[in-house]
């Protein structure tokens, strides 16, 4: 891989060589220090509604949304982890593009959930946490301050005192089955994103694969 990349620029014009150098420089910079706040790759369907930034916490209320948020980074070659998700569906994760060989699972951290998550945040890019029923503001604060110095994203499936954005499924419907015949084919869900005091944003997503629903695109065309 590296040989073809390093040989190719020699045959190309000056400008392209320059851009390759820039790319490598960016890569080296990324290896040397990862600054909090830098963008973390997300799935194409989610990039504009929830751009992920390192060092932030995002709350979701559905396991498939949590999986979708982690999938982008994993597709881009990053490590992801799941803490407290005892019902992790490996096949669904693989279908979404999560590389299972770069996935760390702590199905039941028990009372050590805070330490485990903090340790995972140190080394992984996206950590999905399903916290116990009650999370104190202090515990959340400890994790938040840890996050700020790292380049990880925390996705919480459940309640969390402070989150940059909160994604929730407003309505969901499945296409395919009727009364006995057919099978699950496609799911359509409308997602609401609450971001602090801003008005909530809405988007329609379809599964499998987490894409924007076609109707939404058409609406934008009509309004534009």
């Amino acid at each position: 891989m590296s040989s073809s990349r390093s040989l190719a620029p020699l045959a190309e014009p000056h400008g392209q060589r320059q851009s390759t150098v820039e790319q490598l420089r960016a890569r080296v910079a990324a290896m040397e220090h990862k600054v909090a706040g830098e963008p973390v790759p997300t799935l194409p369907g989610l990039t504009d509604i929830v751009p992920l930034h390192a060092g932030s916490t995002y709350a979701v209320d559905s396991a498939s949304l949590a999986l979708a948020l982690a999938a982008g980074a994993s597709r881009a070659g990053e490590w992801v982890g799941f803490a407290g998700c005892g019902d992790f569906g490996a096949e669904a994760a693989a279908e979404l593009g999560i590389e299972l060989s770069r996935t760390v699972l702590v199905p039941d951290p028990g009372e050590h959930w805070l330490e485990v998550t903090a340790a995972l945040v140190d080394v992984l890019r996206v950590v999905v946490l399903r916290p116990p029923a009650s999370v104190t503001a202090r515990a959340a604060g400890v994790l938040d301050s840890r996050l700020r110095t790292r380049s990880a994203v925390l996705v919480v499936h459940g309640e969390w005192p402070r989150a940059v954005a909160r994604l929730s499924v407003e309505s969901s419907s499945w296409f395919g089955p009727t009364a006995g015949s057919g099978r699950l084919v496609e799911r359509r869900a409308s997602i609401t994103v609450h971001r602090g005091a801003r008005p909530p944003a809405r988007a329609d997503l379809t599964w499998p694969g987490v894409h924007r629903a076609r109707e939404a695109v058409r609406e934008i065309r009509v309004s534009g």
Partner: protein
Amino acid sequence: MRVMVVWCPDWSVVAALEEAERSLRSPAAVMHANLVEVCNGPARDEGVRRGQRRRDAQARCPELLLLSANPDRDARAFEPVLGIIEDLRPGVAALRPGLLAVRAPGSWYGTETKAAAVASEALVQGGIWDVRVGIADDLFTAEQAARTADVQSWVVVDEGGSAAFLRGLPVHVLQDEGARGRELVSLLQRLGLRTLGDLADLPGDAVEHRLGTYGAAVRRRARGEDRELFAARTPPPELEADVAFETPLDNVEAITFSVRTTAERFITQLAHHQLVATAVRVEAESEGVVCSSRAWLHPRHFNARDLVDRVHWQLQGAGSTSRVGAALRGRKQAGEVRAPIDRVRFVPETVEPAAAHGEALWGTASDDLVERGVARVQGMVGFEAVRRPVLQGGRSPAARQALVPWGERAVDLRPVDRPWPGRVPGPAPVRVFATPPVAEVVDDAGRDVRVTDRGVVTGELRRFRVREGGESLPWQPVTAWAGPWPTDESWWSAGGGPSARFQVVGADGRAWLLLRAPEGWALEAGYD
């Protein structure tokens, strides 16, 4: 140079019988391609011969034990024999399983007869009953001398006496040299040459002219003129490493601290031979008895830090009174081990060439970082609490995945690329419950929905509810459902029984995978 040859007759039968844990006195034959390849003494007494067909051999000796040929097994079983002789005299050459050669250790043991006696005694003590030793000037004569010797006995051919010794031997001793030898024996017999002496008396150029180079080589050997050398093997390197504690240690932390340098030595020693270990057995001894032994597999290969971690987990696991791999342990009792440990040993179970595990040019620094971070989490919650998901084949969503402990290699996975009839189609469920909660599904009249033996659903699925932690959640109407996907798994081992799966969409737009087993409904997975 004097040569000593040790011959263990019918070695493949001996090795196969030992592996099968059968008596060496029972008639047995090793079969290859439906022909007898080797048979032992008791079978020969009944009339079984090499090259016989299976049914002929069984007709001669109905109680004949038929064993399959396995050259690897023969070589493996011969390894201890080489070891025993190597202890007496280094420079052993394994000619083939059952036959070894070594330079005759003469003067050290007094005479060659004494040396042969010492060798055969050592082997008999090692459990090899049928052993014959021959000593002569050259390899061929020594082998023939060993073949003429009796059980646990020896024949020494004096210096310069090879030709005289070989003269009297019949030509069919060459039959053991394979197809080429058998062909030559047949030809010599047809020419009226009965003994090796007859062949040796013929003029050399005439033999080479008529019988080719092989015939000429045999003639030279028969005259005792062949000085064929053998390549002594290099003994396999000792790769184990162990550390003894003068005062037995009873604290895991102290032990892990003390094994660090040994683990490093173990890894460097392997690296010196350009090897890496992918499976290592860690043994801990208490008062000279191995009290804890476990094989650890590594997804890539072990380094010193990994080994120290494995020792920690193993001893911690053995010491805790709760079940092994319990997710959480109190920090106080975590450090104690059951018995004071006075020795820890690392045994490489699988080693591979280091070249196959080289690192990429761009480096794997971040992967190393992750490994270290995850090892820290394992230190907090226990080795088996951190998992790595892998896919495997199966019908239910839970069977289609496996959660392998981090740092272990996945073994015994079902293949994914088989059709698995009966598996539920459509997107894979996001939530797969390890222990499916009990559910209830009823039809319009409030009756439990069943699936008959012929796969017929007894009613429309109308409402369902899930029991969670002893109490039932409220009923939920079913807006759509699909199924059944019937399976009948593991009926041969009293598992499962005929069951069927349904995809059910609830009123809130969430879909679930429900299983109807003979004992009732269960919620297997959620599409959430």
